[in-house]
């Protein structure tokens, strides 16, 4: 009997690129990439520019939580001021801004666009250059989640792609791939390496706090009874602010639609944040 190689082995992934970023899918049913990205593509335009980037390396760490809780971290802007003691102590403001894509029509992506307030001088730190923004003329910061687990972060001078890889119910491997833009000075690249390591990396002054909180949320998630979110930011229609709950509702709506598991009943998990 003849052995037909085509009938065995690994399936070929569909591969498309946008602004230098490669997207792969094992599904023949997935829409074309541009359709999938929809209006979120404009956020990638801002973050990735012409896509001509220099790879500075990766950091990889296990988040001790389910991948969906790791995803919530990107959809939720409310935690930035309430969780991040670093933001409070260094007086970094990240609360004012908007969620651009929290609508049920998209495929579940998130796009948080915000302006960080200039950090005030602090006598707490001897070296505040870690907080400097040197690569941008405009003060825009953005973090996007391409549903379900692709994260694009362009915050201050740290440009990174993050990949959340579920390794178990309680374990999510998070990879931070950090970039510079072609043509930048050695000094700016050194600054990016410092900030990408010490501020926004998994051991960074800011991102370490997220991992602590996510592990605790994960531990608390199996608790009995209904979890009621009490944010006091009930805003039912766009444009949504970074502080609003809409993003997380939006994520879980897309998740439930993808798994075809219904909406969980009225008032509990709407399919779209605006409903």
């Amino acid at each position, binding site marked *: 009997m003849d052995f037909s190689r085509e009938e065995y082995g690994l399936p070929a992934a569909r591969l498309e690129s946008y602004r230098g970023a490669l997207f792969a899918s094992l599904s023949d049913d997935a829409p074309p990439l541009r359709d999938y990205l929809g209006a979120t593509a404009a956020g990638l335009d801002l973050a990735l520019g012409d896509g001509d980037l220099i*790879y*500075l*390396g*990766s*950091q*990889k*760490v*296990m988040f*001790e939580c389910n991948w969906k809780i790791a995803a919530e971290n990107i959809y939720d802007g409310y935690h930035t001021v309430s969780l991040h*003691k*670093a933001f409070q*102590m260094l007086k970094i403001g990240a609360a004012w801004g908007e969620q651009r894509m929290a609508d049920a029509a998209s495929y579940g992506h998130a796009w948080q666009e915000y302006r960080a307030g200039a950090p005030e001088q602090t006598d*707490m*730190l*001897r*070296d505040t250059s*870690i907080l400097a923004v040197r690569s941008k003329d405009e003060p825009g910061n953005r973090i996007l989640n391409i549903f379900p687990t692709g994260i694009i972060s362009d915050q201050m001078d740290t440009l990174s792609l993050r990949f959340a890889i579920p390794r178990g119910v309680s374990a999510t*491997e998070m990879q931070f791939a*950090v970039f510079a833009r072609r043509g930048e000075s050695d000094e700016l*690249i*050194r600054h990016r*390496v*410092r900030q*990408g*390591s*010490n501020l926004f*990396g*998994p*051991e960074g*002054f800011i991102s*370490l*706090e997220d*991992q*602590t909180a996510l*592990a*605790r949320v994960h531990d608390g998630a199996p608790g009995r009874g209904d979890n009621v979110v009490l944010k006091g930011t009930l805003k039912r229609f766009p444009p949504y602010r970074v502080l609003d709950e809409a993003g997380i509702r939006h994520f879980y709506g897309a998740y439930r639609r993808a798994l075809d598991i219904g909406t969980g009943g009225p008032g509990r998990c709407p399919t779209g944040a605006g409903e």
Partner: protein
Amino acid sequence: MTTTVDRPVDQYEVERRVRALQRRYAAAVDAKRLDEWLSLFAPECSYVVITRENIERGLPLALIHDDSTDRIHDRVVYIEHVWKGHINDYRQRHLLSDPEVVADADGIRVRQGFAVYLSEPSVAGSRLLATGEYEDEVTFVEGEPRFRAKRVILDADVLPRYFVYPL
């Protein structure tokens, strides 16, 4: 280099003092005595934690990139004043291998393997947080050995969880 004039002439004495420095470093960080940890660095110094994977690929990104005394100082402020009571705390334990100490006209270089175990509250047993190698530069300051550069190279590509205290 003016800071090396205090260095002992005898090679064995240099090695003995370097071993003592590494022991004291491990004891200080395991006991979370971070002011003492800070005191083991020379006035101009760096502290970097980076994966072997990034080094082998020639990539500069690190997990910790404290390339000045001020940044090392700020790390202590973070651990003790920003993260304290806020992070999921744990105990750690360093085990050090026999160091290789090279002292010549260029300075004192040390390579030493380490393992750091992690013990968390109410969790049975301890687990490995990291293994790797120190690639350090040591200098003598007023007769005492101090780190001019401490480079912590991690064997694993993926950290099993975030760490807080210096490795």
